[in-house]
Structure formats: C-alpha cells, structure tokens
C-alpha cells in the first residue's frame, strides 16, 4: 500500500516542481524547483528498485548540470522583472498553441496504457515479492560484486584517468609565484630597520 501512496505523492510533487520551474518569477527559484524535480525523479527511481540510476541522477543531474545552470545564472545576471512582464497579453495564443501541439502527443501516449478490466482498487497494490523478503540483493550490491572482482583493473584505470585530470586542472588554473614586478612585499618592507642619522 505504501509504495503506491509514495509513488503518487512523489509524482504529484514532481509535476508541481516541473510546472513551477517555468512559472517562477526569479530565475534562482526556477533553479531550485529544477533541483527539486530531479530529486523527486530520483525518489521515484528508488521506488522502482533502480538504486544506481537514482544515485546517478543526484550525482550527475544535481551535482553537475544544476551547478552548471547555477553558474550561468550567476554570471549572466537576469533581471527578473523582464521575464514576467507580458504574460497576460500572450496567454490566449499560448494556450491555443499549447493545446494544439501537445494534444496529439498525449492522444498517442494514452494508447500505450490500456485499462486492465479486473483491477479492484487502484490505491491498494497487493503484489508481494516473497523471495525478495528472504534474500534480496540491491542493484548497487550486485554492481559492486561485479565491479570489484571482474572489472577491478578498469576501476583502477578510471581512477588514474581522474588523477590525470586533477594534475591538469591544478596546473592550468593556478598562478604560481604571483608577486607582481614592482609590487611591495609587505614583510620585507616592515623588516627593514631604519636608523635616523
């Protein structure tokens, strides 16, 4: 019963967050709701027993892509007022276009989910996987079994690749010995002894 309830809750919040991404006035709020929608998608994946994909969603989507958007918003300073100025004027045409373009799409997708005639109660799911109650392996555990035994060499080589990138980034983005010619080195100036004779 709980998995259905949780699925419905997370789906609702995912839809709300996705809608608020485009409806929010401040671009930082849009980003926040984008991160929230990624999170809820990740929770739904956890319910579907795809733990690796869920964690990958958080690592890559939130950790890399949302941070990329954050830097873009930070560097290009958006004026929030310009984005929300003319909504009422464009709303009727927008609704017409939206309905016309997306309704055909939805009519096709609905055909993929035919109704099951014998379903009693869609809010109560009575399926129990008995074997999983005794001996279940999560996806991460199974991947770990394979990754560190059969593919340990590839794992170590991936670590070496990250090491190369680390060397390169540290060298390319750091300025060493940044004493500007002609700049004053404070310590040297203060340690000079002056005698007034």
């Amino acid at each position, binding site marked *: 019963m709980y998995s259905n309830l949780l699925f419905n809750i997370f789906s609702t919040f995912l839809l709300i967050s996705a809608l608020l991404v485009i409806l929010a006035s401040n671009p930082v709020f849009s980003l926040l709701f984008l991160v929230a929608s990624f999170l809820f998608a990740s929770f739904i994946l956890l319910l579907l027993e795809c733990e690796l994909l869920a964690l990958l969603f958080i690592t890559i989507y939130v950790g890399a892509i949302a941070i990329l958007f954050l830097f873009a918003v930070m560097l290009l300073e958006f004026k929030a007022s310009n984005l929300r100025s003319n909504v009422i004027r464009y709303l009727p045409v927008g609704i017409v276009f939206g309905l016309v373009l997306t309704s055909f799409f939805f009519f096709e997708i609905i055909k993929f989910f035919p109704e099951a005639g014998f379903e009693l109660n869609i809010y109560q799911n009575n399926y129990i996987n008995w074997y999983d109650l005794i001996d279940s392996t999560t996806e991460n555990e199974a991947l770990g079994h394979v990754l*560190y*035994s*059969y*593919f*340990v*060499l*590839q794992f*170590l*080589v*991936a670590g*070496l*690749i990250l*090491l*190369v*990138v680390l*060397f*390169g980034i*540290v*060298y*390319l983005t750091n300025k060493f010995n940044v004493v500007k010619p002609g700049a004053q080195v404070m310590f040297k100036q203060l340690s000079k002894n002056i005698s007034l004779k």
Partner: protein
Amino acid sequence: MADLKKIGLYSVLSLSTFSLFSEYFLAISVLYITIVLVLIVYSVKNIMVQKALSNAIGVTLLMACYLIINDDILLSNEFSFYLSIVNDNLGYLTKFTVCFFSALVFFIISDSLQEQMLTSFEYLLILLLAVLGLMLLCSSNDLLTAYLAIELTSLSSYLLASFRNTSSYSVEAGVKYFITGAISSALFLLGSSLIYACSGSIFFSDFWDLFSYPGTYHFSWIDEKAHYVSVITEFHPRFATDKTFEDADPRLLAETLYYMVQEQTTDIPWYVAFVHDLLDKANMSDSYVPTVSLLSIDKDSFKLIEVGMVLILFSIFIKLSLAPFHLWSLDVYEGSPTTSTLFFAVMTKLSLFVFLIRFSYSALYSFNDERQFYFLSIAILSVFVGSFGGLKQRKLKTLLAYSSVSHMGYCLLALSGVTLFGIRILLFYLLVYMMSSISTWFTILLLRLKQSLSTSKYSKELGDIALLGKSNAALALGLSITMFSIAGLPPLIGFVSKIGVFLVLLKEKFYFICSLAILCSVVSTFYYIRIVKVLYFENLLVGKLYYPIKTNKTIILSAVIFFLLFLFVNPSFLFLILYNIVFDSLY
C-alpha cells in the same frame, strides 16, 4: 564463474595470476614521483627538476622494458583479468616497443624542456601517464579496457597540447584537440553499445565465437531469396577440388556457386561464403577457397553490428588523424609545444593500430567485406590528402603533420588487405615510421634560432633550416637521410616498408588503388626533397644563427640514423620477430 582468488581485488593485492607487471610498476612509480616531487618542489623555492626527472623517468621506462622481457607469464597466450587482458606475442612486442621508444623520448626532451619553458614536473607526469595508457591499449581484449586506455592517453594528450597556458596558440590547440577527442570517444561508446546490444558481451574472444563460424566468412553480395538461420549445422560442401578459382572474379564466382547449390538444396537456408586460407597457417598462400556454409547470426543483427563496427572504426580514424578526419591534427601539431608534438607524432599511432588489428582480425573477422570498403576508401583518401596537402606548406610542423596523415594512410592500406602478410607489413611500417619520426622531430627540437624577439610567436618555418649544411653538416646529413627514408627512396629502409605496402595491395589485386598510392607517393616526395634542397642548395649568402647543441643526447639521433641507413642491408631480424608475432597470436 572464475575463482575469486584469480580475478578481482585479491589478485591485484597479492599479485597472483597478475600479468600486467609493467603497467603496475609504472602506475606505482607515477604515484611515488608525485609524492616525492610535491614535497621537494613546493618547499624549496625556484628549484627546477625537469631535466633530472625526465632522465629518471627514461630510466624507469627502461626498467619497465626489462620487466616485460623477463616476465614469463606474458607469453603464456592466456587471458588474465577475466578475459580483459590478452597476453600474446603481439601485445608483448608492441608493449616493449612503446616502452622503449617512450624511454628514448624522455631522454630526448630532457635538455630542451627549459628553453621551451615547460619546467613544471606535472608535464612529465602527464606524459608518463599517457605512455601508461598506450601500454594498456596494446594488450586489451575488450572494448571497455580499450576505451579506458584510449581515454587515459587522450586526456593526457589534451593537457600536453595546452600546457603552455600563456600562449594562445597552445590553448587553442588544446581546446581543438579536446573537442575532437570528445566526439571521437562518444562515437566509440555508441558503437560499443550497439555491438553489446547484439552480442551481450564486450570481449573480443566472444565476438570471434559468436560472429564467425570457423572456416566461413560473410560475403556482402546476397540475393533476396537467401534466408538466414541462427543455428549452426554441419552442412559444409567444398567445391574447390577440381577447379582452380584463383584468378576468378569473386562476384561471378558467387553467382555460379549460388545457382549450383540452389538446385541441390531446397529447405536448408544457406549462404555463399569465401574462406581465406588464413587459418591454414602452415600454408601461407592467400588464395580464395569458396565454401558454402551457414551463418550464425541473422540479417538485422548483422547490419546493426556493422553500424557499431563502423562507428568504432571512425572513432579510431579520428584519433589516428586519417583523412577526412585529419583537420584537427594540423592545428594541434602546429600549436602545441614541440615536445608534445613529438609525443603525438611518434608514440600514439602504434597502440591504436594494435587495437585495430585485434578488432578487425580477431573480433569481427567475418565483416571483412564491408570493412574493406571503409579501410580502402579512407586510406587512399588519406594518402591523397597527405601528399597534396603538404605541397604548399612552409611551416615545418604542419608539413610534418600532413606527412603523418599520408603515412597513416599507407598503414591503413597495409591493413586493408585481409592477409597475415598485411599485418606483418603494417607493424614493420609502423616501426620504421617511429624511427624516422623520432629522428625528424628530434632534429627540429634541437634547432633553435637565436633571435632577438623572444616575445613574438616563434613557429618553425622552412626558412629556419636554410643552409644548415654549411653550419652543422652532421645534423643536415642526418636530416636529409631521414627525409630520403621517409620519402621511400632506396637504399634506405623506408623503401622496403613502402614496397611492402604496395605488395600487400597487389596480392589482393587492387591494381587501381595501388597505382594511385604510388603516384601520390611520388607527389609527396616533393616536399621531402624540398627540405633537403633548403638544407643545402638555398640561394642565400648566409644561413641562420642557432643556439649550440649539447652533444650528450645526440647519440640517440646517431643510433636511429644508423638504423635507418643500414637496416636496408639486413632487415631480416625485424621480419623474424614480426613473423613470430603474427604466427602465434590472434586465436
């Protein structure tokens, strides 16, 4: 399921059934050098360690060569790391070659790093990791290890190309290399995923088992009525008893056989295939023996695997800078620091060709008819572009980049004949190419103009080596011998390798392509001989002024030129080694 003590983390930690000792040694030496050098360089002010470190890494690579020679497990012709690593003669010899030539590269660049202002130790560490990636690629048996090794080398190369971050040419070269390399990696992954979708495994030995029934190879001309089955049966009539099919046109032959067999069989789906006498290793003749037999894969899978294979091939062609994927290499070779270009031009090609050999001859051998089209067309285009593109170039590094494009075209021509002789000629050509490239690039590295403007961009031009014959006769003689060898003129060893490529083409009866390649080779001779002309016969009063050259590393140059000059007299010991490789490996 393999025993967990033989694979996995246990085998890495306890070194049981571990056959990658040289790579292990190099990886641990990288970590050790990092720790030691960070403690030294960042505590003592203004210390420059690049010369000592470069010589030390050269000695380390020679020790890795010694490890390779003395390793008994390397020649066991078995797989280790659960089929990821194959230990056969091909991997063994190419690993040794890569290690040895890398050691030479490190010895060569140690004196010239200071004048190029590349004195930070990270440069040499990244170079060492690139060499590690090349070594790992030589013995990889599956798509994942090959991809990781290619990525290790490529990422190191991007950093090496952009290492001089005060020069905009260097940064531009790095960005161009990065974008092109990222696209190439994406194509490789897409191709691998398509092949995985059809086969369920990533190992080349599994591809051999799944996609080619021993003794039968796929022929691309099919009739619409022919069906495929996924069951292998014992139906194997051979038609070559009383007729000789050696000079017959393959398509006519296939049609004849089709109608001959169609009368006899009604229900069993079959297919006309050709056997190359490759597996009959005692008899080294390469004539066609037609056989009718059944295929082991269905038509849709076949096309999808071909798409995957073509994507992987294109990715490797981009990395090898073959035309029409060569445009990045011209700018990258020109903009990178000269030591990085030396590494790109000399070292990266051999391992990629080893991967290509394993992929074409061991894994997907039954796709030869489709693959031959791609190999031949791209190879002859590379030869054409490399020959005609260098004609108008006056910048030395771009000229040598065009020359490298045409050389890779010749190598791919050697690989496109589906014979073992082709593989031998390819490896021989690559060995000779590496020797002549080291000689050329070392000479270019040694010559530095003494000019007053140290702030402007200094790119080496043809005019920089004008009248070198008067100022440094030995260096000019070495460079001209190398140029004659690259051009393919007898009595130097470059002639033997080029003749081998043309012989491979003639064996396969590709007469038109062979004549095109010969004509383009003649055209490319122009810009090699023009360098010799500029060295000796330029119409100037005086030559240029150079910085003096330290002589302790030029012994390497002398040794390489000695080999170029006198290998023509007796190249058979190289041929013996290469014969040994191709005979024993490639299950």
